[in-house]
């Protein structure tokens, strides 16, 4: 080996290189344009074609939008205004129908003097959700709860709630926000109680009815805890006790207490619901119920117990295999045949049950995907530490599986929420079809086709886009691995 060779091979670094920032790449709009829009002849042609199509769309739609009228009392008046301003042949949107019939779009046929009740129920929904949705971001939580409370109060006042009602709303909202800020653990209990409050606000009647329904859950829970040493038997006993309570006693007790202390709101029947109040009621209930049911179904489908697994598979495949409309028809027509004569099983409740079952089948498959994506080692590590099945699922498996499934879960939520418009087929007044038809059926708004559809579509878009953005926020927040 020659000396020169040895010199070229041997090398000892005496100083380590410090890390340097990456080179600042040339940037700017021109570079972006050149790289993305005009990088070659084909791309130039496609860019120009795209611009042309955009121009076509814009030049067709813009006059209609820019001529639109927001203040008028009928379709005819709209047309007169447009003709006067832009010439006899001009066309234009008549969004005055939205302004004129706004309350009908939002509240359906809900009694006008009771509008504050759905408003309060909707506002309180955010107070119930904020501690859960923004668990580790007090700032976001405060913004949401504060805005919801102020808007709820203001809207209720504008819609003509009486002084007593306004005072009650203010006390409720303030107390709830204080509870969230001072006692976060109790706020979660308030969240669990929210559904019963919402039912009472929306349908009215005596507060004791939803409270006695709640009592059924409490009775079941107490019995389950008391007998927990007996395993499955305790669970069966708890379910049986709760069902017996609901079927036999709860009405009686509710009426008994109501006779002494009424706690009554004016009752509103289900056929007075309509518009977005209906959609959001069904949507929120379906979302809240289909997630837990979907988790149970997904776990059942992955269970080692053959009977449970078969039942889950049959349920999921059957429900996914039929159109939602079929289930809604079953809810509206067939269920009554199976009920004892004289029972009045609320139509909205029936629809909520069917929508929940439908969404939960999809939910189960989405969550099953998340469960399957977890490495087997996670199950083994949980087992090896001595965690039993339920603890392993709750503490190790589901937190990870649900996180993986967030995009799919939120997709299912969004799909289900939009599907609530299908309730038009069982005679309920959804905002998109039934409510628009009703408004068009009136003499003054005959011919308003585009505007209600655009408006309702826009509202659905805002709500669904909100859910989508939240899911992205949640994914970012739960991101754990820095790989």
């Amino acid at each position, binding site marked *: 080996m020659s000396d020169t060779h040895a010199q070229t091979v041997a090398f000892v670094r005496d100083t380590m290189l410090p890390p340097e920032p990456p080179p600042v790449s040339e940037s700017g709009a021109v570079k972006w344009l050149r790289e993305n829009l005009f990088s070659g002849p084909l791309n130039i042609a496609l860019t120009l074609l795209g611009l042309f199509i955009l121009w076509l769309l814009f030049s067709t739609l813009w006059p209609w939008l820019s001529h639109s009228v927001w203040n008028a009392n009928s379709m005819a008046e709209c047309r007169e205004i447009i003709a006067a301003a832009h010439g006899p042949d001009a066309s234009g949107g008549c969004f005055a129908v939205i302004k004129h019939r706004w309350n009908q779009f939002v509240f359906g046929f809900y009694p006008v003097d009771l509008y504050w009740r759905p408003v309060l129920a909707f506002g309180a929904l955010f107070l119930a959700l904020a501690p859960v949705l923004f668990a580790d971001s007090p700032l976001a939580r405060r913004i949401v709860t504060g805005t919801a409370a102020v808007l709820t109060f203001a809207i209720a006042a504008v819609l003509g709630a009486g002084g007593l009602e306004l005072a009650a709303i203010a006390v409720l909202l303030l107390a709830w926000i204080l509870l969230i800020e001072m006692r976060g653990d109790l706020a979660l209990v308030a969240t669990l109680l929210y559904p019963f409050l919402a039912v009472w606000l929306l349908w009215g009647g005596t507060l004791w009815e939803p409270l006695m329904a709640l009592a059924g859950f409490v009775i079941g829970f107490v019995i389950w805890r008391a007998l927990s040493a007996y395993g499955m038997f305790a669970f069966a006993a708890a379910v049986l006790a709760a069902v017996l309570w609901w079927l036999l006693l709860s009405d009686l007790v509710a009426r008994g207490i109501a006779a002494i202390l009424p706690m009554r709101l004016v009752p509103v029947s289900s056929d007075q619901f309509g518009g977005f109040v209906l959609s959001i009621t069904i949507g929120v209930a379906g979302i809240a119920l289909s997630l837990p049911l979907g988790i149970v179904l997904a776990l059942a489908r992955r269970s080692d117990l053959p009977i449970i697994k078969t039942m889950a598979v049959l349920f999921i495949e059957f429900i996914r295999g039929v159109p939602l409309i079929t289930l809604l028809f079953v809810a509206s027509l067939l269920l009554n045949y199976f009920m004892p004569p004289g029972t009045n099983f609320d139509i909205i409740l029936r629809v909520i049950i069917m929508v929940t079952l439908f969404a939960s089948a999809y939910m189960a498959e989405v969550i099953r995907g998340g469960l399957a994506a977890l490495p087997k080692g996670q199950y083994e590590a949980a087992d090896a*530490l*001595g*965690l039993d099945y339920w603890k392993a699922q709750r503490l190790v498996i589901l937190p990870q599986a649900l996180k993986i499934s967030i995009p799919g879960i939120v997709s299912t939520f969004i799909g289900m929420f939009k599907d609530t418009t299908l309730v038009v087929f069982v005679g309920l007044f959804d905002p998109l079809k039934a409510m628009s038809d009703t408004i068009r059926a009136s003499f003054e708004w005959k011919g308003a086709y585009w505007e209600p559809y655009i408006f309702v579509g826009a509202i659905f878009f805002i709500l669904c886009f909100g859910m989508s953005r939240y899911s992205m926020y949640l994914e970012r927040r739960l991101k754990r691995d820095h790989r």
Partner: protein
Amino acid sequence: MAMQAQTQPAEAAIEISRLNKWYGTFHVLRDIDLNVAKGERIVIAGPSGSGKSTLIRCINRLEEHQAGRIVVDGTELTNDLKNIDKVRSEVGMVFQHFNLFPHLTILENCTLAPIWVRKIPKREAEETAMQFLEKVKIPEQANKYPGQLSGGQQQRVAIARSLCMRPRIMLFDEPTSALDPEMIKEVLDTMIELAEDGMTMLCVTHEMGFAQAVAHRVIFMDQGQIVEQNTPTEFFNNPQSDRTKLFLSQILGH
């Protein structure tokens, strides 16, 4: 030579007799007899597919056996879920791929089972966890997530997580096989320290230096059977069966 196992002190931590297991029709464990005394440290070696991992996974019933008896610390492993959970809470296991819970911090990984299985108050469980994290020399990582740690650190956390349950027996399933050479030593050092404390250990590993340093007994498996077992000195210097000689020549050859 093979009788040496029976001459160990009478107090048995694990008694395995005529253990058989099949995967479908594949006979993966054949008539395994093995007694492990309290405080004994056993290294199980063998070519891949010889059933050594399956054997130690049977001891906490991550794998179910079809014939034979396994008694761990006086509890026989059957289909009784209560017994299985009892055994699992007494037997710690460390995996090849660490299997830390990525959604929990290091500290939460270590306190999860003590809090939910042993019902130890959270504060006490955290104190214990910090003690063991100090023992494996990474207390400063307690509030990080597993994804932020190196492989060697993760494996040491996995050991600490098992120790937090204060197990009587520790199983190691190729704990260093997924690690870079530089990280193998830090994990082996932790295991040696554990051995010095008198923990009963069963370790599936290819680290023959570790076997020589800490094992009371080396077991060599092939085709689902125990082919040879002996003290490390005898095993490495004076192997008896041809299969063992071949294996040793291959792994120690270079």
